Each structure stands twice: as structure tokens, then as C-alpha cells.
């Protein structure tokens, strides 16, 4: 029985972590602009050296 309680705590904690991640994502506006971040990552700091 005590195993179930440990499992319970573990599962709810993991789920809660995901919930927090989701809330954080929504609040910080990650779902608002789905174009700029993926393009931004493609740009290097010095474009002249990345022409290849």
C-alpha cells in the first residue's frame, strides 16, 4: 500500500511539473509567435562567415 502512495506522489509531481511548464509557456508568450523563434535560431551572429 505504501508503494502506491509513493507512486501517487511521484505521478502527481511529474504531472504538476508539466502543468507548470505549460503555464509558464503560455504566460511568457511562447504560443503567440510561431514564426520568429524557429527562424531566429538559424541566424548566426556573423553572417559574413556563414555564407557556405
Amino acid at each position, binding site marked *: 500500500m505504501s508503494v502506491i*502512495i509513493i507512486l*501517487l506522489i511521484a*505521478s502527481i509531481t511529474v504531472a504538476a511539473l508539466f*502543468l507548470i511548464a*505549460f*503555464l509558464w509557456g503560455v*504566460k511568457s508568450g511562447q504560443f503567440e*509567435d510561431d514564426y520568429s523563434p524557429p527562424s531566429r535560431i538559424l541566424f*548566426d551572429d556573423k*553572417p559574413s562567415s556563414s555564407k557556405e
Partner: protein
Amino acid sequence: MVYQILNQSDLCDYYDLNKNPGISQRINVRKDKFAFLEDEKIQNKLTSFRNDKQVHVTLYLPQMHCSSCLYLLENLHRIDEGIISSKVNFTRKEVDIVFLVNKTTLRKVAETLTSIGYEPYISLNDLKEKRPAINKSMVLQLGIAGFCFGNIMLMSFPEYLGIDTTEVGLRTIFRWLNFGLAIPVLLYSALPFYISSFKSLKHKFLNIDAPIALAIIITFIRSAYEVISGTGGGYFDSMTGIVFFMLAGRILQDKTYRQLSFERDYTSYFPIAVSITKDDVETPTALPDIKPGDTLLIHNEELIPADGILTKGKAFIDYSFVTGESLPVLKEVGELVYAGGKQTEGNIEILVVKEVAQSYLTKLWNRDEFKKNEANKKVSFVHLLSRYFTYIVFVIAISTAIYWQLNDPAKLWPAVTAIFIIACPCALLLSNTFTNGNILQILGRNHFYLRSAQTIEEVAKVTHIVFDKTGTLTSTQHQHITYEGTSLTAYQLQQVAALAACSSHPLSKALAKHLAEGKLPQVAGFKETIGEGIEGFVQNDLIKLGSYHFVTRLASRQTGTAIFVSIESRLQGFFQFSNHYRGEISGLLHQLKKDYQLSVLSGDNDAEKNNLQHLLGKKATLRFHQKPEDKLRYIRHLQDQGEKVMMIGDGLNDAGALKQSNIGVAVAEQTNNFTPSSDGIIEAKQLALLPKFIRLCHANRNIVVASFVLSIVYNIIGLFFAVQGNLSPLIAAILMPTSSLSILLITFGSSSLLARRMNL
């Protein structure tokens, strides 16, 4: 890799910009174009944060269109040292800029942006209150409801599957955990329902959210009682599940097209400031501060913000914002010019006669009638249905209560609460929100954007469709050009085309496009007389194009929009410009005239009357010479006769009529163009599909009603158990998800299927 991406999107010029920090590539900015940004008051309104070191500002850059733009704009700090950072929001086409006060100014930032090709769009609208941030709370509520629902479901399983009675301790833990998890749903996630029902009850109106809020609260109280008294597990899973599904439906339905705006009024068209000249000194002044008697200097390509009298220069005004007519109108000194037009050639000065808010067009917007209209908002039939539903539920609950009071008082409360738990009209709400959401999405895919779910019902009710002519039935992008006079040889036509191609005047451009074939001959000695015409030598022939007066030096003759041609001082004839009907219009009108009353309102003369009457059929009403108020009045007249009017128009001159009509649809050549405030925006090339769109909106109601009938069947099954007082959590837990899911499938499936059958 990066280079390839940028190369494909053919905007590589930033590489050059980096090599030699822009001298040659830069676009020249007119000297005082952004002078108004030095004004304290305007700065305060535009910036989101400022102290004595830093300023944060968000600018709207409509020219932004690809990943190269993103790159360039995020590297602004290389171009201007004062800029600390710039961050782009691509979907909103905005850039957040942080700059240092002691190194640069807002004006310099705007000038830098303009010089690299991204002119910030700053309109009078920005002077008003800040735009509200997008409401994220409903998504947060959905997330929390989903989390709680999932966990409660899992922890309810042991109970449903018959947990061993020896494990009482474990069962109690599960129950209390469920109880704890249901609290955030009750207090936070279900908030929209409480707020909405409270508001409606305050207006003495029973909407669909009131019984739902009641059901949520009763379910919670009953379940809490069971857990605390140790008599059962409660219905927490049903309660949280319902909240979760209903929130999901709401979000789907309220998904808005963020890049579109349905609320535009004249303030989003108008600039934020213009130059007032006084004793040859130009001072930029914010629009609300302009008073009658001021002299405004309107530069080339600027909008005239207030009604005034032309005092200097030759006005060549493009009223396409206002009327949808793309050909500019010539105004002489002393004539009245109305606000909303755009000066196209050279600078002019006008003496203001009316304030901005009192001008002819803006007054149409500020009418009091519209404000009243907002108050009595249209009510969805779903609310009326739910009202009957609620009454019936109450009757059943009361009769059950009476029955148990007489027979077995112990069962009274379990039975009554079970009725409210099972019989909440959530299925109706679900079917409504999911159908609406799906139909909005289907229409959006076809470039017909509706403001809200409520407009779907309004579209279905339409009985009378009113069209604007210019810009709606006719296209502003194509002109119909006919030539009359001594016929020209192909050689001469090429000469004319070559000359016309030299000018940037819209008529010349249209003519050049119409005539040009292959390589054009060289033009020498080109000369343009603003507002009159153009001349030049083509293959040693002097060719003149322009007004009758310009070409012949004789008194002017009124012949509508025409360009006269002379070759070697001999008048040859003229090119007549007329409206070009959109290709698909005749088919559209033919289909619509079977089912609807049609009208056409036009600000033009009645030259097209016979043609239109033929297209629209004999029953249709045609009205010409209609001023903006006439259009509005005609719509109101129809409404007084009990007609539900759909107005289809473009331009500011239709704005009043669009607002007055039951559903106003703005036609846009491109959806990111400016459209007046309306209930819907349709892309011009999709106009032919309008009858299908209306049919789809009709089907919306049938789907909702059909799925509602199904949900009543579920309710009857549930009520059968509830009135007997033995609704077990298991039955509730099975009924709730099956009814919700089957309704989701039916609404989604049938609306998608219907759309596919219509080829949408």
C-alpha cells in the same frame, strides 16, 4: 544554409548593408516626415516604458514579410548604435525596440527603419489607449482544468473498478485527492461561466451559462458532502471533465484572426500628426489638436486628415480609401477637399474648415445611433433553447422533490442534486461551440473571415443582400480601357505606351500596362505637367497624353475619365477608362437572385444602369448618386421593413452602411489591406463562393439542433436514474464522456463532411 534560405526569399540586400553600412541602398526619408515623434505627448503615448536612460517602444511594420526581414530587424543595433535590442513578433508584424535616450531618439529610430525599407506605420489609433493584451487566461484555465480532469479520472478508476473494501484507507486518500484537485477547477477554471451567467442575470436574461454554473456548483457541493461524510466518491471527474470540454469549445470558437482587425475606424487610417504651416514655419501637430483656420501642409502621398479648402498647389487626390475608386480626382485652388483622400502628386496646402472629428466622413463614424446599437446585442438561439431546457429541468426537479418528500424523504436530496448534475445543458453548449468553431475555421481557410461565432447565425438569417458597386462589384485593380477616335497603328500604340510608361500617375500606369507589348522605344524630352498630362518625343514624334485642355489648348470638355492623345500636335482620339466588373460577379448574382432580394448602391452616375439591371434581374433595386448617409439610410429603411440585411462593400464610404446592416462584409483585395470595421472580411477573389458560405452557415444551425436532440436522449437516460435517486458515479462517469465525445464527433464530422461536399 542560412545564405540559401535568405537567397530564396530574394531579400539579400542586408548582406550589402553589412558590408558598407548603408549609404547607397538607403531610401531617402523626407526631412521632416517623423518630426512629430519629437513631440513629448506623442512620445508618451507610443512608448511602453521610458526612464532617463532607456525607452521601450513597439512599432508596427507592415512591410515585414520573410525571415530575412527578421534577421535585418533583429540586427538593428549594428545600424544604429543607440539601439540596444530589437525583437520581432512576426505574426503581429511588430518589433519591440529598446534604445538609449542619450544616443538616439524615437525619431531617429523611425527614420532608420524607413531608410532600410520598413516604414513604421503610426496611425491616429495609436494615440488612444493601449491595445489590450491578448487574453491568455482562458488558455491557462483550460490547462489547469485538463490537468485536474486527467488526474481525477485516474484516481477515480479504483473506485469504479471496485477497490477492495479492506483498503479503506487508500480509498479515502483517493477521494480526498480528488476533492483537492477539483477545487482549482471550481474556483479558477470555471470562472468564465460564473462571470457570464452573473452578467446575464443582471440584465434579467437567462443565458446558457447560468444553468451550467449552477450545475458545476451543485455537483461540487454534493460531491464534497459525500467525501466529507464518507458516503461516496462524488462526481468530481464528471464536473472537471465538463469544464474542460466546454472551455476547449469556447477557445476553439473564440479563436480570432489576430492579423485581421474588425474594429478599424477612421483613426487607424489617419496619420498621427501633420505639419501646420504658419509664417513659413512647419510645426508637426497631433491630429486632435488641429483647429479650423489652421493651414496644413500635405506632402506627396500623405492623407488629408480634415475637411478643408485647397489654398496652394494642385491637388490630385486618391479617394480609394474612401470610395474604392482608384482613379485620382483633380481639385483646383479654392475647392473643398474632404478628409480621407490621399494626395498623389506634389505638395499642397489646405485651410482647415472642420476639426478632424467633425469632418464629413469621420462624423459618420461618431454617430450616436451606433453606440446604441452596441447595447442591444444579438442573442443566439442557443440561449433561447437553453432557457426552455432549464425550465423543464426545474419542473422535473420540483416534481421529483415532491414525490420523494411524500414517499421517502431520505432520497429527496440525492435525487434532486443528481438531476441538476446530469441535466446541465453542457451538451448544447458543446455542440454549439464546436460547430461554430469548426465552421469559422472552414470559412477562414476559404478566406472568408467572420468576426465571431454569433455572426454565423446572422449570416444564416439574411434575407436581403446589398452590394456596393465601385470596388466591390468592380475591381479596382483592373481598368476597362476603350479607345475612340482615329485608329492608331501598332507602331503608334507602342509610342503611346512608351510615353505612358514614363509617368507614375495611376492612369498612365494603367494605360501603359494595357498597351505595352515587347520592348518599348526610347522617350526623349519627357515632361510631366502635374494634373494635366505628359509629353515627350518618341522616335522623333512629339506625343502628348492628358486632359483635353492639355492636348489641344482648347477649353476643357467634360467626358468622364479619359486620356486624350495627340501625335505631332494632331488630336487622334482618347482612351476611355471605365470600371471592370470582376469576372465571377455575373455567376454570383445569378445564383443569389434566386434566393435573396438584391440591391446595388453606387456613388457613381447611372451610366451602368442597364448593364447592372440585366445582371441582377428585374426585382433588384438600383440606386445611384448615393452618398455615405444615403447608403446608411437605405439599409435602415430595409431593416424597418423587417429585412435582415447583409451589406457587402469596401472603402470608408460604405463604413456607415456596413455598421448599420445586420451583417457587414468588407471586401479586400488582400486580407492585410485596410478594411473598414465590419462583421466579416472576404477576399475579393472568393466572392463567387458567397452562396456556398451562406449555405454552410445555414447548416450550422441544423447541426447544432441535431446534436442537441442527441444530447437530450443522453439526458433522458441519465434522468431516468437520477429521479430514482440512484445515480451512481459510475453511470455519470460513463454518460458524461460518451455524450461529450459523441457530440464532438458528430458536430466536427458533419460540418467537415458538409464542407467537403460543397468543395470548400
